[in-house]
């Protein structure tokens, strides 16, 4: 475990000597959203740079896909991003469907979107909850977790698991909605929507919280695109782009929803607070989408018949899915056999981590926590 390149340096300015300090944060750190490590070079409290060291959760999911086949890989996609596993399921299902030319029944698409948006609510709740916990407030976290449990219960009714759903199949979904599900979900949404306002009361505009986040680590739009920031992080810069709206897939074109963007309401445009606020606003949009889907859902089958040994034709396919942490790229190469030849997953957290080095220059060490939390990094999504 060499620390090549991070040697101790002494800098001498005029008169007063300042020593540059090399600190090690992680891999086991209570507020790093998983096992991440940062090598921080600091001058007093001000960071010169924070170099991320990742790979502590590299589980070689891409290699495993080459061994388990197209259908068998579905449970593994849950573990790519366990906080919002639904969208990963959808990404894999969609890329296989694209490669093999499979059509999904309409009701199946609706089931997918309902599940995905519920998953997005759960993911954003955890994101804002842990963000507050990282900043230092323990109670709001339990509030967020309490609501998340309710979403988990709904998803459990739908697909029998709380976290690793394995709900989707290539060609549709594995389970239809259980009887009375629409009422259950509506009841939850009725209860949940006022909760968002409560959360704003509790934390969003809290003076201390705002002071910790405003004007910290602002990203400009050009920078964000160049580093390929995606999802809420990109929208936090005030750039209105959402794969669901701009490169529509599934049934999203039929749905009516807004794409919230950062407005710089308490500080610079694109700072930590804007990224946080986009997530809070997206909770509302997801509720809206779920309600529409429940109204519009048609009758019919949910799963198309697909060969047990799926053999897509030789070639490659790439799809982009708007997951909770942004645009997720799924790339699969098929060599005509029943095993994928190569799978590549490009995730939102990966590019978000690559910008940390740049953003951390010149901010305080304590702000690094706020920065990581606001980027909503999930370790396995970085490492896969």
């Amino acid at each position, binding site marked *: 475990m060499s620390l090549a390149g991070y040697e101790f340096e002494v800098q001498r300015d005029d008169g007063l000597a300042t020593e540059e300090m090399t600190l090690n944060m992680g891999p086991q750190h209570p507020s790093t959203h998983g096992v991440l490590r940062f090598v921080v070079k600091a001058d007093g409290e001000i960071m010169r740079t924070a170099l991320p060291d990742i790979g502590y959760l590299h589980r070689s999911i891409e290699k495993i896909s080459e061994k*388990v*086949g197209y*259908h*068998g*890989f*579905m*449970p*593994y996609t849950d573990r790519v991003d366990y906080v919002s596993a639904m969208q990963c399921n959808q990404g894999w299902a969609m890329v296989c469907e694209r490669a093999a030319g*499979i*059509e999904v*029944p309409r009701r199946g698409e609706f089931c997918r979107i309902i599940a995905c948006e519920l998953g997005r609510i759960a993911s954003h709740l955890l994101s804002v909850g842990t963000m507050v916990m990282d900043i230092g407030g323990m*109670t*709001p976290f339990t*509030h967020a977790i*309490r609501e998340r449990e309710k979403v988990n219960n709904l998803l*459990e*009714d*739908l*697909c*029998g*698991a709380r976290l*690793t759903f*394995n709900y989707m199949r290539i*060609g*549709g*979904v*594995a*389970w*239809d909605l*259980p009887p009375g599900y629409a009422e259950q979900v509506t009841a939850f949404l009725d209860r949940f929507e006022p909760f968002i306002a*409560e959360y704003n*009361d*509790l*934390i969003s*505009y*809290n*003076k*201390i919280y705002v*002071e910790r986040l405003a004007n910290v680590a602002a990203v400009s739009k050009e920078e964000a695109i160049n580093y390929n920031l995606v999802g809420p992080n990109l929208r936090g810069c005030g750039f209105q782009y959402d794969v669901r709206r701009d490169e529509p897939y599934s049934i999203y074109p039929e749905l009516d929803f807004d794409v919230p963007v950062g407005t710089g309401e308490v500080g610079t445009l694109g700072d930590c607070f804007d990224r946080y606020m986009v997530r809070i606003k997206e909770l509302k949009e997801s509720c809206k989408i779920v309600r529409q889907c429940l109204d519009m859902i048609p009758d*019919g*089958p*949910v*799963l*198309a*018949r*697909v060969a047990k040994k799926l053999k897509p034709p030789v070639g490659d396919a790439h799809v982009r899915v708007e997951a909770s942490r942004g645009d997720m790229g799924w790339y699969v190469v098929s060599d005509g056999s029943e095993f994928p030849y190569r799978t590549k997953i490009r995730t939102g957290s990966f590019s978000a981590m690559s910008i940390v080095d740049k953003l951390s220059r010149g901010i305080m060490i304590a702000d690094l926590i706020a920065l990581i939390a606001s980027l909503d990094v999930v370790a396995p999504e970085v490492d896969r």
Partner: protein
Amino acid sequence: MVSSIGRYLKHAKDAVATIFEGLSVTMSHFVRKPYTIQYPDRTAVRVQDTLPLRYRGILEVDLEICTGCLACERACPIDCIVIDAPKDKATRAMLLSRFDIDIAKCMYCGLCSEVCPTGSIHHTTEFEGADYSLESMIRRFVKDPVLAYKAKKGEETDPLIAPVLDRGMEFLAEWAEPVDMKKYKKEQEEAAP
């Protein structure tokens, strides 16, 4: 100077005010219903009984209706199911001599129960299985070799097997039925005008 003191005081006031705003939300929880489920002993019903039928807990096998088709063993991506089903030479019937599931390795994905033709292997709502050693976490379902179940034409009549089969079918009914999209579309088009 005056303005900076004024700003400082305003910040202090804001901070105190928003803290109380937040605390009022927290305080309102004193009159709300408690949310904790007092597992394991102080719940009205067992937690397992409150879980939906679809819940993917620890696997269970109904040997009475296991056909020995090995579909589950093949479907498992990580080989945590091992079945030995040799043919009995004398009677030419299939014997089940071993049906082991490693619940420490199982990933509870449901791919095995999806392919089961009779619903013999299924997830239960049971989740308690913590133990002190890995060896004791292997579930061995076959004690003595048993005959594999053979599907009958028509209704199942054996009073011992029928209820088990009914239960298995209940699990199977949860899974979505795949359709042939071409056929389905054609039917839809014919039905439309």
